[in-house]
């Protein structure tokens, strides 16, 4: 089982991200669980969502994820808030939206493995909006291979209708641009 914590801010779509990937995994015949950590549902406030994917076993645990295998941060500003990074497992992977270089982030954040992408830049260019959730799915898939990129198309079409195509394009662009090491 892979356990993922998604940190974002209200309005960035972290919960939707978890749900879309869960749907994609289930379509692939895997077991998945997306679980929001509901707090004050305000635009801009820190929001945490959980995602579990298991290739073979039904997922029974419903407790919050305390030590994720993967930490996905939608908003660079959250890296300085509370215990965001310290929760990550020693052998875990941090996936970050940042305008800074991969090398610079490697010196700043302590993580065994790291993936970085300028998701905000891609979202602004492709979607025309500063909403990075679907873009960061591209980074997540590149960094973990948790699902196939194509498996996200149907869930996105169902969720976004007319604007699905742009979101799929943003995801694919982020998949290409994400640096992993």
């Amino acid at each position, binding site marked *: 089982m892979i356990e993922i914590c998604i940190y974002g801010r209200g309005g960035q779509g972290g919960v939707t991200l978890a749900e879309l990937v869960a749907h994609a995994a289930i379509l692939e015949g895997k077991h*998945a669980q997306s679980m929001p950590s509901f707090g004050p549902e305000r635009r801009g406030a820190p929001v945490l969502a959980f995602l579990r994917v298991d290739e073979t076993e*039904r997922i*029974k645990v419903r*407790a919050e994820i305390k030590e994720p295998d993967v930490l996905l941060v939608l908003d660079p500003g959250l890296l300085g808030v509370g215990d965001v990074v310290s929760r990550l497992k020693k052998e875990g992977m941090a996936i970050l939206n940042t305008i800074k270089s991969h090398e610079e982030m490697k010196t700043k954040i302590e993580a065994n493995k790291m993936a970085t992408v300028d998701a905000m830049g891609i979202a602004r260019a492709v979607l025309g909006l500063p909403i990075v959730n679907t873009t960061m799915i591209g980074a997540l898939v590149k960094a973990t291979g948790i699902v196939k990129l194509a498996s996200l198309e149907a869930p996105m079409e169902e969720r976004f209708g007319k604007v699905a195509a742009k979101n799929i394009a943003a995801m694919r662009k982020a998949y290409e641009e994400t640096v992993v090491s």
Partner: protein
Amino acid sequence: MKKEKVVGLEGSFAVSEAVRMANADVIAAYPITPQTHIVERLSEMVAEGELDAEFICVESEHSAMSACVGASAGGARVFTCTAGQGLELMHEVLYIPSSMRLPVVAVVANRALSAPLSVWCDHSDMMAVRDIGWIQMLAENNQQAFDLTLCAFRIAEDNEVLFPTMVHIDGFHLSHVIEDMRLPDAEEVAGFIPDYKHPFALDPDKPVSMGCYGPPFIYPETKRAQEVAFEKVMPKILETWKVFGDRFGRYYAPVEKYRMGDAKIALLTMGSYSETAMLAIDELRAKGEDVGLIRLRLWRPFPFKEFREAVKGVEVLVVLDRCVSFGMGGPVCSEVKSALYDQQKKPHVVGFIGGLGGRDIPIEGFEYMIQSALEKVKAIERGEEVETEMIGIRE
């Protein structure tokens, strides 16, 4: 072969699918967190023509249940859903369908009660309605939320039952979680839910009075009649779950056991944390401890026979309550103790209160309760008084 497909569905949408497939006639509900998605999805289904039902937009939960009572008295298949304070506002009217034998089906997304204001899950709301004459059952995952909602219609509307039925799904833990589940074919479901006709529905050609004035010369007889009728509900619940299991392959029971073979220590849970508790049992079993898990699927009528059967041979029973009965401890624990009072051989019962207002209980939390209970039993055996412990409290 069973026709079904694996889908990813949020608990709320799973419930809405069950209501759609059961082909409800009237839905009256008021949105409240964490139940809102059920109402939203159902209103969408009605608006899109996917469900041919009357959706009554009411101004409160009190009105929602009042509308349900009227529609059910008219012979309609009726559904509502609510949570927390909404169930409390509905409380006054909840007694009416149970004493007028109107088979309203309600789903409650369990939520804590104010104050302080909490939208998160615990079982305070469902415990506050345990004495109202409704059948109450609990789901542990989204599959069960769907299955039990379907079963609720068949149980409630059985002409030998005709009691309103509540299905409890833990707020957020099920209502807002997307997970994989099996969705049966609509035709298969249609075959499971028979056509419904209330034997004494309101009819202008055959006028009847309902909910009349009950002076002392008749009121106790009506309550006795209600109690006698409620005592006959259990066989119908068992029958429905058997028919459901034979058709869909998933069997339910009033009390369900997990790794209870030769268990000397048993943990008792209800609702969505039960599967997390199973993982704690697995870990303790791996260490060689004789522990198992008992889950109450049915809360009303209380399954006395099945419960006593399940704890046979158990020496320590550890009960988790997600509600406080102030000055009394936990309501499930006190009920369990009363169910065992007359038994010659009975386990020590140790109660804990946890998971209030959405507070997380990790796997270790269940392991802690079991270890701590063994210490408490030693104290009980020394003749000391042991209080109900609230777990994970910062002092």
